[in-house]
């Protein structure tokens, strides 16, 4: 799976959880950009990503994830393993 595909899926998840249009989300969208992307929203996004790809992030990975690009990278790296 390439990064563009992951970006598409992750953007949809962020859009759904934050209650915004998918067009409003890009790879630089980050925690705090949308009102619903607070700690509860962040956790919901990461849980949904984990569920979608059947993966789980380690706490060290979680801490580094702040924006859409970070999520895409983290997913890509785990899927490569």
């Amino acid at each position: 799976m390439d990064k563009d595909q992951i970006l598409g899926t992750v953007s949809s998840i962020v859009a759904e959880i934050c209650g915004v249009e998918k067009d409003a989300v890009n790879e630089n969208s980050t925690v705090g950009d949308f009102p619903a992307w607070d700690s509860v929203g962040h956790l919901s996004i990461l849980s949904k990503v984990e569920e979608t790809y059947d993966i789980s992030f380690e706490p060290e990975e979680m801490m580094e994830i702040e924006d859409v690009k970070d999520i895409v990278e983290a997913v890509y790296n785990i899927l490569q393993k």
Partner: protein
Amino acid sequence: MTIEEQIVLNSINRPDHIALIAGDEKVSYSQLWERCLVAATNVKKKYGLKQGDRIILSASANIDFIYAYLGIHIAGGICVPIDPDTNESRFELIKASTAPVCTMGTLLKVEGTSTIPLSNLLESCDVVEPFRQIEIDTIADVLFTTGTTGAPKGVSLSHKNLSAAALNINTFIKNTADDVELLALPVSHSFGLGRVRCVLSKGGTLVLLGSFASMKKFFGCIDRYHCTGFGMVPAGWGYIKKMSGKKLGQYADQLRYIEIGSSFMPVEDKELLCELLPQTRICMHYGLTEASRSAFMEFHSEGKHLNTAGKPSPNVDIKIFDAEGHLLLNGEEGEVCVKGNHVTCSYWNESKDRFAKDFFNGYFRTGDSGYLDEDGYIHLKSRIKEIINVGGKKVSPMEVEDILNSIPGIEDCACVAMPDPEGVMGELVKAFIVTHDESLTDTAILAALKPKLEVYKLPAAIERIDSIPKTASGKVQRLQLK
């Protein structure tokens, strides 16, 4: 002495001590006080605020909010802090109830209402009015809570209430003027706003972060400003743990205190915190907007009582009464009732006669049921009030039920709190529905709810039952569904 009077003393005694830090900006106590006086002057001269007038303040953890909040008090006004995320219907109800002279700060979900930017309050004014003593028994804040019915209820807090609460909290936690506190809590609620008052009245330093969402920023601020404490709700600990594992333990020598808000927290979580931070005062409170931090416990020194809500805070008395207002003995279960100068002076727009019904013999009725053990510790059994607490956010069951009931095929429903199986959010919403439509799937129900509710308010589980338990008068008995 009011909080503002304590701050003016701090500005005289330690004028150059840093009061606030936000990003790269640092504000000393003398600067803080000067700016609060400018804000107070402007709010009177430009916006016509008179003694006792209300201003709705969209409350986000930035420096301008702090100037506005204190400035309105100094000018004799009443602050009505609301969440920037407040929806339109809730805003309209609060506005109708408080008839404010204006609304300040950014509202994200309200269209068509012009609000005044907080920065306008700092515009230069020709003559800054000197500070005049604030009458301690007047109302300082009206905080609107999430009522079970969905209608917001205004809790009035006098200057005396606010300073009594700050004194009780600082006494228990043992805060000092040398503390540097990281504030990641929302300031539109009693807990976060209370932390602001505690730190500034004591003369400490407050680092404004505003949210736990970015753990990188959270730990970055603790490192950079050498923070000695912070406040969090139990779900905040769930979040920190999930996002950063045991990293907090690296700050064991630095963190002097943590204050934890009142909602359910598993004993294992408390024990883990004790293990990671063996020298930190880890103080968990029990309280409500009407009676902020009525009880406290410290995890290390009271480790045998981790399953309780602690003991009454300094200067607070707690007793248990039965439904008729008779005092109960230790071990007998009834309603937890609180007495102290921190207890709300009134509900906004409610008669004295009605308000008097919220008391038994001078003790405020919390709506929580529990008992006191032989050592005086409070054991909470259940909430008589039925608000669902999702990761620290309050959800009114009726708000979700009203929307569920509008879905074709659902004949009746009730929502209650269920524990989060992941142990992170604390509670989640569970919906019980009555339906004879077999084609109505959970997916279809959630799809109908999604456009109308924030994600955290969506039911995490939906169970079909034959009927919703109700009292003879038709009131839903949600506690029977738990």
